[in-house]
């Protein structure tokens, strides 16, 4: 036998290397010292020391979403793992592959309320795709390989591996990746049922008002899936709308793209959803931000739903043609069937559908009033887009109004360039996520489009960016409010702005200075382009404080409890009765 004996901590790193991990985001502590000691003695895996464990998970998410690889996190027991919980939940909701290694007290101390002990597998069970507590050294390498397999297969998600200290210190035999057999139970279905695909294509060929509705599942399926989608959509000539998570799966500037659907989606996308007769949902999950009032959601359409996760099907909306499978596999088959059956939707019907869409587009729902006195947040994002569209740019966001404006005004032509917290809506996501993106793409421009309130939730990470020379740009749309909270208070609570004002803000320029980063403040629309150019040119972390109109609201908007055809297009629509009593109950 050539099997080597080595300490558990060394096995962990060996398994990570075999799994292709080149960066770990982490924070040391007592329980994981053996792993840190091994990290110190090797050069293969880089470690990025974050300043808070939540940021470590978001950074790993940013890394994963921008590369398609599994992100890796290392934190200690107790507070290390509890701090990671928000990030794990975020990754679960948005289906991001992350493996998070957590330290644990020694096996004989588990259950004794030992120092820095927490029931990590208990706490993280509902916020991970799967988790493990390694109690036997013999299981260690297999469990880590399995964790990566589970994280990236099927519908991706976060996996926690809890590692007691005695397991890390004990010596055992490493089991290489290729010696770990096929997983006993977890074998997601990749190929879609051909009969269902044929039915779907038949519905599509007979459609008069078809619409593709695509989500993050296309991006998770990989660049090939995005290419197949683009080809197929162009072959059919059908219009397409995307969820927040799906932006970039199909080129945003393409004439067949109607933009984003949902609560702050475009007028044309939402009305097309409402009026279509065949909806082809690919890798999206009929989230409540997309559907609006469920009983009025796209009432007349035949719904086709492609998803790798059977539990996404018929969860919120009953569909007619469910297809369980990987997007790339299903699209390939759909394209074949489409070609083989020589499907040709009726020309006149398609023309009149596109004519209808053109009239909706003419409404120009994203229009806003510009002024030369104050920077409009939409204008700031438009200028950022113009200045960065021709280079390799990755955009992350925090959560709130700025996030929706970024989705509306920044056009994504490619997948994996847009990282935002969709499902969980985690303020503080964007800055650490941008760090992770920058680690994976050192030469690219990485911008966190932020609000000042969100940014302050994880701004300790400026230190990380400075330490690792990550030239992440925080593009802070500073309206001195938690803007979306303020907007809802304006629409729903009589303009009583309870606790939503960002009082006692720091001077962001001085803040940047104090960390050794670069700060810029701009409040004049005429100087915005110059400031953006400066931000891009500086090869350092930059905090750019863009003072924007504090009163601006995010439109269009489907108020809670309303249907797609009941959008508010601007402030003039947002009267007292804009939101029903039932709608007030919804988030």
């Amino acid at each position: 036998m050539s099997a080597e004996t080595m300490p558990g901590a060394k096995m962990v790193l060996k398994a990570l290397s075999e799994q292709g991990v080149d960066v770990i985001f982490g924070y040391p502590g007592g329980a994981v010292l053996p792993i840190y000691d091994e990290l110190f003695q090797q050069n293969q895996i880089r470690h990025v020391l974050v300043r808070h464990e939540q940021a470590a998970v978001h950074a790993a998410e940013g890394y994963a979403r921008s590369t398609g690889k599994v992100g890796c996190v290392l934190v200690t027991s107790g507070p290390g793992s509890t701090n990671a919980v928000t990030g794990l939940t975020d990754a679960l909701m948005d289906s991001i592959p992350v493996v998070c290694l957590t330290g644990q007290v020694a096996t004989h101390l588990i259950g004794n309320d030992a120092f820095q002990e927490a029931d990590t597998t208990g706490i993280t069970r509902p916020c991970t795709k799967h988790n493990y507590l390694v109690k036997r050294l013999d299981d260690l390498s297999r469990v880590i390989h399995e964790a990566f397999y589970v994280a990236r297969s099927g519908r991706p998600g976060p996996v926690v591996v809890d590692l007691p200290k005695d397991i890390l210190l004990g010596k055992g035999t490493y089991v290489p990746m290729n010696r770990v057999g096929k997983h006993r139970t977890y074998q997601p279905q990749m190929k879609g049922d051909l009969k269902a695909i044929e039915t779907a294509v038949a519905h599509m060929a007979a459609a008069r008002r078809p619409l593709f509705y695509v989500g993050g599942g296309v991006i998770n399926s990989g660049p090939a899936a995005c290419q197949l989608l683009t080809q197929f959509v162009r072959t059919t000539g059908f219009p397409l709308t995307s969820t927040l998570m799906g932006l970039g799966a199909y080129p945003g500037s393409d004439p067949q793209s109607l933009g984003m659907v949902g609560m702050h989606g475009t007028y044309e996308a939402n009305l097309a959803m409402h009026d279509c007769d065949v909806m082809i949902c690919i890798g999206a999950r009929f989230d409540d931000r997309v559907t609006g009032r469920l009983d009025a959601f796209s009432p007349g359409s035949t719904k086709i739903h492609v998803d790798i996760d059977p539990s996404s099907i018929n969860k919120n909306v009953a569909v007619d043609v469910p297809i369980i499978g990987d997007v790339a596999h299903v699209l390939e088959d759909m394209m074949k069937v489409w070609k083989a059956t020589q499907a040709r939707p009726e020309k006149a019907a398609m023309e009149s559908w596109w004519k209808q869409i053109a009239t909706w587009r003419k409404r120009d729902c994203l229009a806003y009033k510009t002024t030369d006195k104050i920077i409009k947040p939409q204008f700031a994002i438009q200028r950022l887009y113009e200045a960065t569209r021709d280079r390799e740019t990755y955009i992350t966001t925090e959560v709130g109004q700025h996030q929706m404006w970024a989705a509306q005004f920044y056009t994504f032509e490619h997948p994996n360039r847009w990282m935002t917290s969709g499902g969980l809506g985690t303020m503080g996501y964007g800055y650490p996520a941008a760090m992770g993106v920058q680690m994976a793409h050192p030469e690219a421009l990485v911008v966190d489009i932020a609000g000042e309130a969100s940014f302050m939730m994880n701004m300790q990470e400026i230190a990380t960016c400075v330490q690792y020379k990550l030239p992440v740009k925080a593009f802070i749309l500073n309206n001195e409010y938690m803007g979306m909270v303020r907007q809802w208070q304006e629409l729903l609570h009589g303009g009583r702005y309870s606790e939503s004002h960002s009082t006692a803000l720091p001077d962001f320029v001085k803040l940047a200075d104090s960390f050794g980063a670069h700060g810029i403040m701009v409040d004049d629309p005429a100087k915005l382009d110059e400031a953006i150019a400066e931000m891009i040119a500086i090869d350092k972390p930059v905090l750019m404080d863009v003072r924007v109109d504090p009163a601006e609201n995010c439109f269009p908007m489907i108020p809670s409890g309303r249907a797609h055809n009941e959008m508010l297009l601007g402030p003039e629509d947002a009267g007292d009765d804009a939101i029903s009593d039932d709608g007030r109950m919804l988030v």
Partner: protein
Amino acid sequence: MSMPSETIETHTLSVLVDNESGVLARVVGLFSGRGYNIESLTVAEVDTRSRLSRITLVTSGTPMIIEQIKAQLGRLVPVHTVRDLTVEGPMVSRELALIKVAGTGERRVESLRIADIFRARVVDSTNDSFVFEIVGKTGKVEAFIKLMEPLGLVDISRTGVAAIARGSEGL
């Protein structure tokens, strides 16, 4: 598209899982976290060699919820198979209950007489009490308990439902 049915149905599910630490917590947590009902749950190892446990679950909900429950169970990593015994053909379901009845005189005699009708066995006896063991479908167990109520019912312990499909096919 017709609106999905809103009628509440009761289904018996059979779930084969790896008998590993935390697997029951995953199943139970799924139900509490997503607001599903558990009317009965039994679990025990059924294959010691491959360390498999069988969970029998009785749950209720609209057809859409039942479908969702099955899909959610199916995607738990340690779950091998999820079968809906209610829709997959005839099944046999049984539960066992231990029922303590205390009393003397006419009531004591009457409890024994009813136990005989239900084919319940006496598994413990004192001068003023019996413990009956009854096996059957949930309805039978409940009917027996109801009849025992006026006769000095003191305590009940039920196992919950174990179920299996009729015929030669395995899970």
